[in-house]
């Protein structure tokens, strides 16, 4: 076996064994949160990195997914799994309804439009308190305990969620790889590189932008649904433009179109501020500074920079 794959295997093994060696629930929680960000960043990469759509509304779909699944459970007593799937479907439909007219807007207007939509959705969630609980929606059911072959698993435990998020992350990456390495993905790349030429070669530019946008939003929505059950309470801020901005920072800093980028970005921007003292206060400063440094000195992000150091590095970094 190639040494490269041995390394990948060891990293994978370490990731799988984290909950065995890490006893502190706090750290499991931290890793789970990073995993959630990795899923969001990976899905944003489909729209931003692969298709060239700079969206400041990505968190909005994470939020809508979380809220619709939670509301289905709380108000209509839908069981968790169907609620999760239905909530994701609802969000996909909302994303398509928003994306269909928006995506015909080009360039800076599209970015501004997504910003406005992100802010508007946060305001709506905040003010529609009859449905969304206003400043916070709490009491979202925990996952139940299940007994299989006489063994009882507590699905509401921090460890279970760690593996759940890990599984979602792996599936997301596989989905994205498959989409990207196909006719659809080549169309995304064409749109990113030159929209006019793509249309002149017979590609349905707005149609494929919509596919990319909705696919990215759907993954975010599914993650949002799981997040709602994980946390038990959600706030409108998870859908807000600040959150979307953070996701954009993570993908730009980590590096687009790269598994390593989708891992490095969230790891760096989630953990480093945690280690800084007075983390909350220094976080915006840190986020902004690292974003500017990376965008000026490493336009392809950290993963892209590492890849460009040596041809062998390019092979090693997925």
């Amino acid at each position: 076996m190639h040494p490269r794959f041995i390394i990948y295997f060891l990293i994978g093994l370490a990731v799988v064994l984290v909950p065995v060696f890490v006893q502190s629930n706090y750290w499991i929680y931290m890793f789970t949160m990073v995993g959630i960000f990795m899923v969001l960043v990976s899905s944003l990469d489909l729209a931003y990195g692969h298709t060239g759509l700079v969206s400041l509304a990505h968190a909005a779909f994470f939020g809508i997914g979380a809220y619709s699944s939670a509301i289905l459970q709380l108000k209509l007593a839908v069981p968790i799994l169907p609620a999760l799937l239905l909530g994701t479907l609802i969000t996909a439909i909302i994303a398509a309804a928003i994306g269909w007219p928006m995506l015909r807007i080009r360039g800076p207007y599209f970015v501004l439009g997504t910003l406005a939509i992100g802010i508007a959705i946060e305001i709506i969630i905040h003010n529609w308190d009859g449905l969304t609980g206003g400043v916070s929606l709490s009491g979202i059911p925990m996952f139940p305990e299940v007994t299989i072959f006489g063994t009882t698993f507590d699905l509401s435990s921090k460890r279970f969620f760690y593996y759940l998020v890990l599984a979602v992350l792996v599936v997301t990456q596989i989905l994205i790889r498959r989409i990207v390495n196909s006719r659809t993905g080549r169309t995304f790349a064409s749109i990113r590189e030159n929209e006019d030429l793509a249309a002149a070669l017979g590609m349905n530019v707005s149609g494929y932008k919509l596919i990319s946008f909705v696919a990215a939003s759907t993954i975010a929505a599914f993650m949002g649904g799981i997040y709602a059950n994980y946390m038990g309470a959600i706030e409108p801020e998870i859908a807000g433009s600040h959150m979307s901005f953070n996701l954009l920072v993570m993908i730009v800093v980590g590096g687009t179109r790269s598994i390593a980028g989708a891992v490095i970005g969230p790891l760096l921007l989630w953990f480093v501020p945690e280690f800084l003292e007075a983390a909350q206060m220094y976080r915006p400063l840190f986020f902004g500074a690292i974003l500017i440094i990376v965008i000026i000195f490493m336009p392809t992000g950290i993963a892209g920079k590492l890849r460009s150091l040596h041809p062998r590095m390019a092979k090693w970094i997925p």
Partner: protein
Amino acid sequence: MDSMNSSQSNPILRTENLSVQFGALMAVGQLDFQIYPGELFGLIGPNGAGKTTVFNAITSTVPLSHGDIYFKGKSLRSLKPHQVVTRGIVRMFQSATIFPKIPVMIHIMNGLSCRTKSSVWNSIIRPPSFHKEEQTSRQRARELIQFTALEGFEDHAAESLSWAQQKRLMLATALATEPRLILLDEPFAGMNADEIGEMIALIQAIRQDGMTVFVIDHNMKVMQRICDRILVLNFGQKLTEGLPEEVAQDSRVIEAYLGGD
């Protein structure tokens, strides 16, 4: 070639009173012309005459102010640019317009996209038909790479090619869309004599396969050599139209060219 024969069949492309206006500027005015299947039709005229605008109108990239365009008897009006390609018309842009970072092989496969079907679901589930389509796409792309003499560059980014190679890459990508009519906007611009020769050979080869070619260029000598018929445009208006030797001797054409450049 045999323009006498072809004029008896139905035109593959026909414009009727084609007019494009940008504000007060009449970029193309009341233009009528026909192109017959298998023909190599030329469009010449000084800079700013409205030549590219004619292509833009045919490919639905600018709206028509008046008139209509018919391809194989059907109107192209109200089609989106990508739908025009599906009908069988493709264009090569004036400068080398390419996907800069995309490798040559994939670049050409992008041209095949409009003729293949594989959906998002297919790319995720990957049934046998998915792999089969990918394989035939690759095979076709390889043929076009060979045709345009780009072997050995399969994995090179498009932007790393020379100017002439980029133009050939664009030709290959355009041909991948399986057009019946191909629009070439100044395909010889910025090339040396050898490269022009290669491009002419390619154009003549695709005509052997029954392709209709509509070409814009400045180079009167080359155009005279390759075109079956030539239309001369000046200030958006048709100056004259006819066989290359007729056009070359037309005093108005000589005047427009000497006065224009």
